[in-house]
């Protein structure tokens, strides 16, 4: 019984075909599974193992190395508050302390309604907007405590639904073109990649988000 939806299963096979070796697709497939479920379920890990040719334990063992891959459920919106040096000097701990008090949870916890998870992040490479916060990996900053509360309110009300897609959705732009991976091109190997169909998903557009990268920059605006 496949865990990935038929649509996601097709996407997964296209992703595997992009790489000379299927195992390279492991992390992209974890992101894909998170875009479906919000986190990385056991069932998803089993199916990913099957798709890339390793054991479910190897998928879990790899996934647990990476901060963005959640092997336990998280909220619909994951706050990542950076407290590294540049943000700390700009008052990040004040923002983090306020976030804990305001949401009524500690770092690492999820609110009872499943709306918010609070994480402390290492440098997110947006030090010109320090203190900065990511929500589902979309940037906001500089934030003060009032700005944090406003952000939480906007997220709760759905006003930011276009800017901040559901937890787990990373890139809303898919690879629509491309050559099959090199190994498939030379067609010498008896590999498991789906050969000639590789990477071909003409005109595929996602339905779950605004569907294009043409939204204005939410990150640092150049000087």
């Amino acid at each position, binding site marked *: 019984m496949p865990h990935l939806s038929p649509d996601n299963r097709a996407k997964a096979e296209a992703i595997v075909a992009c790489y000379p070796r299927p195992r390279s697709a492991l992390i992209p497939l974890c992101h894909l599974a998170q875009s479906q479920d919000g986190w990385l379920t056991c069932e998803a890990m089993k199916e990913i193992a099957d798709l890339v040719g390793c054991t479910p334990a190897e998928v879990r063992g790899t996934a647990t190395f990476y901060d963005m891959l959640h092997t336990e459920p998280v909220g619909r919106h994951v706050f990542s508050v950076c407290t590294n040096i540049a943000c700390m000097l700009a*008052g990040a701990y004040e923002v983090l302390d306020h976030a804990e008090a305001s949401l009524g949870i500690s770092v690492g916890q999820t609110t009872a309604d499943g709306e918010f998870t609070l994480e402390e992040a290492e440098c997110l490479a947006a030090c010109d907007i320090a203190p900065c916060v990511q929500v589902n990996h979309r940037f906001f900053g500089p934030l003060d405590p009032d700005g944090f509360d406003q952000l939480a309110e906007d997220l709760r009300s759905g006003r930011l639904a276009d800017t901040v897609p559901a937890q787990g959705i990373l890139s809303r732009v898919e690879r629509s073109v491309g050559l099959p991976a090199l190994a498939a091109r030379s067609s010498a190997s008896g590999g498991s990649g789906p050969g000639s169909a590789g990477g071909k998903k003409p005109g595929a557009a996602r339905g779950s988000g605004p569907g294009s990268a043409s939204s204005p920059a939410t990150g*640092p605006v150049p000087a």
Partner: protein
Amino acid sequence: MIAQAPRIVTSRVALEDSFTLQRYLATGGYEGLRKALSMAPADVAAEVNKASLLGRGGAGFPAGRKWSMLRQTPTRYLVVNGDESEPATFKDHMLIERDPHQIIEGTAIAAYATGVEQAFIYCRGEFALGLERLQQACNEAYAHGALGRAVLGSGYGLDIVIHPGAGAYICGEETALLESLEGKRGFPRIKPPFFPAAVGLYGEPTVVNNVETVSNLPWIITHGAAAFTALGEGSSAGTRLFALSGRVEHPGWFEIEMSKTTFRDLIYDPSLGGGIRGGKQLRAFIPGGVSAPWFGPAQLDLGLDQDAVGRAGSMLGSGSVVVMDEDTCPVRAAWRIAQFFHRESCGQCTPCREGSGWIEKIMHRLEQGLGREKDIDLVLDACDNISPGLSWPPRQTTICVLGPSIPSAIVSVAKMFRDDMLVHVKEGGCPFPPDAVRRG
């Protein structure tokens, strides 16, 4: 005022639609690739070699030399490192979001010069918008014919895969990055072999170049190596992106001619950093990412030059400068850096895995006012166990350079601010004000 150098990698980033194909083509985009394809691959590589383009990722290794070390086998790969995670570094993030086509074009030029037909751009996973922009640019480049079986109508074929990371500082280390790209935990590989150019992705020869490095290539090929080396000085040729953060009026990135500008200019010039916030005094600054030993006011007049900074006992590293003012507690700053390394140590090597935890704990209790005077020597001893001698450049007991980077901040504080450490012990608390959010 600082003389305005030509903008090599940031020429179009201020434009609203800088990331679109139309804007890219309207501003000379893909002309460098077209010119490169009219040359022999070896000539393209020779031109880049003449330009003395130093790698912009942190190690500063000449890109041309890296290419020349590539083993000549039928299957070779190019991997562009966009896993920017060194604290206070945010230049590649900007380039990825604002000018993704420039990265695609630079990648194609590098791939052509090195005879590579399959390239990967490894983009830090947290850059969601950046991943969307890169994939969009990649799709557009295919549609435009700048990628695919016949790049711009030539006989050369190239595929680029945009690969997302998933959150791990160590994956910026090139061998860890390759492990990650192979779908594994980001464990740096044991050296030798020292360079992926010999044994890289899937064991095949691989070039790994930084995002900013490849972003320079279209300009170098279009304008020639001589125009590039006319900027900067000696081996520090061209311009470089510096990321300025901390207690300055205008934190941000600045594209600056190498060597000709000093740290004082970068921090105080009204067109750059604009001085310390609120007119406060400078206490210290980090010249090149948190792995670098700190500098004080005495080093302000050093040029932004890889060799000069190296001779002065630190490194230009990833080009990120963090400013600490008179209100900054150096013990707290060093503790937070130690905590970062402790969290991001991959855990393979004992000195780094265990040492980083010890150092973090000792620094934390010192900052909290719970430390003892002998803790200062104890923390230095722990540092010495990671990097014997505490010299610069650091000696190494570990597989990669993360471990030996840990002592930099600690040794800096012990050298420059030992009295402040003692005050923490004597007063049983931190004498500095808490770091507060700036309002209004």
